[in-house]
């Protein structure tokens, strides 16, 4: 054993050489430029990877590392990272409304300067890039119903409350973000879209008392809303458009109405103190600058991309089910993010009190 270092056999040389090459290989991979992004995983992640991350890596050589977490986990984790100064993520995805909150501003970088480069773009709307993050996609929370009995179809929130004309049980979301249920109740009670915000919470809850016995599903996750519809647990529900489309693709008898819908979207936010800040900005710019990537992802996810050029690239079939410009103009409700954020704690507390 003592003579071991002296007998430098061929085998030793091979081992040493491969060890050295391993070392150099790992240092090379460490040196590779990268950017870390957190998203909600699953089908969503796969679509983004194929349409956005992979083409980006091909174009720039920057590796995109994805981390999977729920939106709530992301928010809590990013807050903890910034608080402790140990930031390991660069970008994460958050809801349009949350991205306008003060809690969000405290942990993410203000993108106002970054957004200036998109100011002159005709295909991007004014909110495609905002201080809180770049717009990833938009979708809706809306009224969906079971089709096929040949009768009239519900179109408005008032129809959802009308149990005489439209029988069957109802579904509403209950994922700690109650504004959209209250807003639907107020619209059903005759409040106009223009006067909806600030929400009259007590009036909304009073209206909800009427429908409460008919509600069979208070869904917490998108999957619950799908499973409930498959099982026949409800025939009219307030659910996500993405899920309603997924069920239609499955062949389930489902229809929906843009006359009872709320516009909601996802934003890409830059974590304060991100280690790969430059790469993160490049990745965000790549999304907004490539209608092809947006079209490809939204084709799969049934979302509305930020660029109108991207919409033009999507298939006729998908475009047919997207809300028309006049439906958006006349009916879709754009939530007052500022008001919702300012009153989030109070809303949730009152909601919890009502619900239990």
């Amino acid at each position, binding site marked *: 054993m003592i003579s071991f270092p002296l007998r430098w056999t061929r085998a030793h040389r091979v081992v040493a050489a491969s060890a050295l090459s391993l070392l150099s290989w790992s240092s090379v991979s460490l040196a590779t430029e990268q950017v870390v992004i957190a998203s909600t995983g699953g089908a969503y992640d796969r679509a983004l990877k194929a349409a956005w991350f992979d083409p980006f890596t091909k174009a720039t050589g920057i590796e995109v590392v994805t981390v999977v977490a729920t939106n709530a986990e992301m928010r*809590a984790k990013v807050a903890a990272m910034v608080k402790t100064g140990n930031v390991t993520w660069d970008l994460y995805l958050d809801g349009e409304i949350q991205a306008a909150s003060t*809690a969000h501003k405290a942990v993410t970088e203000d993108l106002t300067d970054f957004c200036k480069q998109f100011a002159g773009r005709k295909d991007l709307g004014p909110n495609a890039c905002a201080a809180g993050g770049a717009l990833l996609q938009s979708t809706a929370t809306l009224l969906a119903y079971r089709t096929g009995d040949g009768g009239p179809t519900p179109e408005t929130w008032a129809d959802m409350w009308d149990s005489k004309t439209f029988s069957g049980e109802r579904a509403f979301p209950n994922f700690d973000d109650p504004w959209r249920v209250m807003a639907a109740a107020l619209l059903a009670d005759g409040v106009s879209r223009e006067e909806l915000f600030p929400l009259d919470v007590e009036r909304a809850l009073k209206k909800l008392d009427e429908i409460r016995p008919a509600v069979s599903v208070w869904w917490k996750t998108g999957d619950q809303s799908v499973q409930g519809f498959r*099982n026949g647990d409800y025939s009219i529900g307030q659910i996500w458009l993405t899920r309603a489309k997924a069920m239609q693709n499955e062949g389930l008898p489902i229809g929906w109405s843009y006359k009872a819908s709320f516009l909601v979207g996802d934003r890409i936010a830059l974590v304060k103190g991100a280690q790969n800040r430059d790469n993160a900005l490049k990745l965000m710019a790549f999304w907004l600058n490539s209608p092809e990537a947006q079209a490809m992802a939204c084709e799969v996810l049934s979302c509305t991309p930020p660029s109108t050029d991207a919409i033009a690239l999507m298939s006729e079939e998908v475009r047919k089910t997207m809300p028309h410009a006049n439906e958006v103009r006349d009916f879709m409700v754009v939530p007052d993010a500022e008001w919702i954020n300012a009153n*989030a*704690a109070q809303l949730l507390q009152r909601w919890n009190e009502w619900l*239990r």
Partner: protein
Amino acid sequence: MSGPSEVLQPTSPHQRRSTAASARFYSRGVSVCLAAPLVVALAIGFVYPVTRLVGLSFEGGSLEQYRRLVAEPLYLGVLASTVKVAFIVTIASLLLGFPVAYLMARLRHGIAMVVAACVFIPLWTSVLVRSYAWVVLLQRNGIVNTLLADAGITDGPMKLIYTQGAVIVAMTHVLMPFMILPIYSTLRTLPPDYNRAARNLGAGAFRAFISITLPLSLPGVFAGSVLCFVLALGFYITPALVGGPGSMLMATLIGQQTTVLLDWPFAAALSTVLLTVTLIFVFLFRKTLSLSKGLHSVH
């Protein structure tokens, strides 16, 4: 009581106690060294974060968080229903778990292993999986509803899932192993001679159980009940999956404050209250049980 059995049974509790006493032979220095790793680990991984958490709830030296907690009836109301659910689940686990533990302790080795496997395998399965299993069982077109309808007991599907009842059933199922195992380990150490002696002196099987086996098994009952109760107080996943809007528990509210509203001082205040209530109940529980006879080994 253990006098005669000491002669008959070399591995009686008495004998075991004298082995345990041999720990006193170690010098103070060795004892400190042996305990040090665990003490350090607990200090870093448990005492420090809990202290920070409690400190966070008094942020800025104010009682503002607690004022809000008491002023809104919601929070104390949910706390009360959390304690209620935890109690029901503990009692249900005890009633269902004790016979299983008794059976495991009395059966022949081979069959006891099979019963033990039935207890252990669910314990090793993720809580998420077990809770989802209840979703499958209890849903509208689930097995339970189909069976009831086929047997002609019910006309149509009953509302089983997303109810308080579903939460209690699923939580009891998840927590049962924590009740069975401590009771089982206590019953195993009871020499069968005590029971035989009681029967010999004219007690019926029931009387022997009530006055001999049951009191002697109380340390296990205590340990199991405390485990179940404490775990039930902090349950989060199961109520979220099988519960309805009415089954709101403390952990749900703490989760909302931590991840949705990012109001950590208030989340810390809620956690501190839950922690305090837990400690109070564990203390009361021990007091009550130690009054009953046969519980001298609960220190």
